[in-house]
């Protein structure tokens, strides 16, 4: 009965509501469309950067803008985690930057190559003469099927331990000759004295997700045979056959070192629950007398107004008298996605960044080592005495590129780090760790050839 007495006013209001609903729906659909004109996009070069390297990129950006009238360089900072994980999707999207950070030892690099999502950079390499200016083996490793898709913008040496000289003095420890602790017994002696003097031992980010991999790199270099080490570094590649399985003692002996160290209290208390920043804080506050890092650390420590003097040393291998050496990381690279809006400008920027002038500026202001041989670290006093010593030592003692610096993340760094945590936490045995690594390798080969 009530329906029959609805007036025309009520019907009109319902119709009006329906029209409003339809308009709202259309508005929603239209608002989902992209914005911004393509003309604006072509005058802006979007470059990804990590905050630690910002000063160098800002310098390069100012030089680029001066030489390219009307072009603005937009530096977008991304985190360490982002560049090694979610950046693959960003680089392959229609909203990709013009230049992206693509570490060659992280999963995004492999995924982007397989999806053909990166532009070849043969022209950049030719214009910048990178085949000559990069060290030969480094240049080869940066190419995929002889084609370069990335440009290396810096290098670092890692697996170096910085120590508190004041703490060592107070503990009655003689500073290691030639910066090397030559045996496990010597290491345990140092740690014992430090603990007696009230200091924690080696501070490292046990939960950082990559620092156990650093130690593995150093141990493999010191302990594994050349044949086995070469196999570990290359057998993952397409077309290569494995000759030394990860279940062999060539691999597991290196990992076994850490259990012995952990049992003897070498690491700081609670190492498995701490990240890199917490480890660094333990060192700079004087609680831990030693800190695992690399050649970028002195530039960081300079900003913290350290209350003590520090030196550097290298940890022992499993065999007395054969200690580790600093390990090279040559995986910090830049790439141009196929979906970049300004690919030509991007290539020009890459050529600028690997120029001697910018490489020198980066070394002086960011603490990274140059990626090109035409700029020698020894010629950059601003790197500081400690870094110069590490570089000189490495040159004279046969440094090498790390295993986790070369392998894709899913097989190297991202996989081995939690496995070592499980091993040290008692969740898996050494044999199981080796089996797990071997299984991961076999799965990787099955998917990637």
């Amino acid at each position, binding site marked *: 009965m009530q329906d029959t007495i609805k007036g025309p006013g009520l*019907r009109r209001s319902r119709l009006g*509501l*329906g029209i409003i609903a339809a308009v*709202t729906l259309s508005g929603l659909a239209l608002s989902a469309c992209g914005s911004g004109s393509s003309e604006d996009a072509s005058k802006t070069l979007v470059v990804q950067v990590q905050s630690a390297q910002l000063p160098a990129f800002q310098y390069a950006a100012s030089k680029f803008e001066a030489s390219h009238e009307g072009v603005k360089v937009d530096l977008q900072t991304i985190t360490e985690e982002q560049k090694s994980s979610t950046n*693959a999707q960003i680089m392959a999207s229609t909203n990709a930057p013009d230049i992206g950070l693509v570490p060659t030892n992280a999963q995004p690099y492999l995924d982007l190559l397989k999806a053909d999502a990166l532009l070849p950079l043969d022209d950049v390499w030719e214009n910048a003469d990178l085949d000559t200016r990069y060290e030969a083996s480094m240049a080869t490793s940066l190419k995929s099927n002889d084609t370069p898709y990335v440009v290396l913008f810096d290098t670092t040496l890692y697996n170096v331990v910085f120590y508190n000289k004041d703490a060592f003095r107070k503990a009655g420890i003689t500073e290691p000759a030639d910066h090397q602790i030559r045996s496990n017994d010597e290491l345990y002696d140092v740690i014992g004295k430090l603990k007696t003097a009230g200091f924690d031992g080696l501070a490292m980010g046990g939960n950082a997700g990559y620092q156990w991999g650093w130690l593995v790199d150093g141990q493999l270099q010191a302990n594994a045979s050349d044949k086995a080490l070469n196999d570990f570094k290359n057998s993952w590649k397409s077309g290569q056959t494995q000759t030394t399985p990860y279940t062999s003692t060539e691999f597991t002996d290196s990992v076994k070192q850490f259990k012995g160290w952990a049992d003897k209290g070498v690491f700081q208390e609670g190492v498995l*629950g701490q990240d890199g920043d917490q480890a660094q804080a333990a060192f700079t506050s004087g609680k831990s007398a030693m800190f695992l890092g690399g050649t970028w650390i002195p530039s960081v420590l300079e900003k913290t107004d350290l209350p003590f003097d520090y030196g550097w040393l290298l940890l022992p291998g499993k065999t007395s008298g054969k200690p580790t050496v600093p390990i090279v990381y040559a995986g910090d690279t830049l790439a141009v996605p196929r979906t970049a809006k300004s690919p030509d400008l991007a290539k020009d920027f890459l050529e600028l960044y690997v120029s001697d002038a910018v490489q020198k500026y980066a070394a002086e202001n960011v603490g990274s080592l140059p990626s090109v041989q035409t700029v020698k670290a020894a010629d950059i006093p601003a790197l500081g005495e400690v870094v110069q010593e590490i570089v000189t030592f490495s040159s004279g003692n046969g440094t090498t590129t790390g295993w986790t610096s070369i392998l894709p993340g*899913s097989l190297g760094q991202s996989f081995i780090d939690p496995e070592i*945590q499980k091993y040290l936490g008692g969740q*898996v045995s050494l044999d199981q760790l080796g089996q797990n690594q071997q299984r991961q390798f076999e799965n990787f080969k099955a998917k990637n050839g």
Partner: protein
Amino acid sequence: MTITANTSPATSNPPAPLRGAGKTTRRASREIGLMLAPGITVLIIFFGLPVIDLLQTSLSQWSGIGQRRFTGVDNYLQLLTDKSFLNSLLNSILLGIGTAAGIGIIATIMAALISGKIYGGAFYRIVWFLPAIAPPSAVAVFWSLSVQPRSGAVNAFLGAIGLGDTHAWLSDSSTAMYVIIAVAIWQGAGFAFLVILGAMEEVPVSTYEAASLDGASPVRSFFLITLPLVRPVLSMIILLEAIWAFNGFTLVWGMTQGGPGDVTTILPVQVYKEAFRFGDFGMAAAISVIGGVILLAVGFAGQWLGSRKAADD
């Protein structure tokens, strides 16, 4: 002349439908449909399509970019025998149940105290709710620093009362998950407390007065009157807290990233690692689907339990 209204009851001959009533109903239905259309469209676009895409991805091998390769149920079969997945599932269940139970008990006690008019109730209402408004990432960072050996506030307190200051709570595989549960309870109890308090304050005062006249003590009244009457709200909040904890990525990632090893890895953390660290979106999707099905079952079970009649019906 008098006009008499027909007040006789309805006869077996109902009035004939008025002309045009069907057309009016159809028009009304069209208008209702038109008004519901935007909402349903948004639901389809932002929920329905992604779910379908998720299911498709779970049946594929895909790195997140490029082409997908259909692999059928391979990902699911692999998960059935994958120890790390089973470990993550158990961790998720432990986190969900532990957090929900802890929040349920603590929030009920807090609500009972405020409802019982303790001194300073207005102050406690605010203070106890504060953790709920803190950003989860900030909570994770704060507590992960607080439980560090030697430098953390928790260990400093334990050291001050003679219990030692070197406990590596997050480094020890036997304690790491319980620390996370404790932090989740700390953060979640405030919101639950407010909801349960609201339900308690709806209980008629006369009910308590009658019980008091019959000789019931406050504690007996609480267990025999208050709890049964707030049970629907209590069970709803416990269910929600269990679901939120089960999906609690931020807290776990911020405190331990699933470590040490995989001792605190829950399903959302494993999904993240599979997708973005190992480049296996197919496996990540399969884990998401399984997690979603479990939560759906939990939700339906909770719905069924909650729909049972309360004590006062």
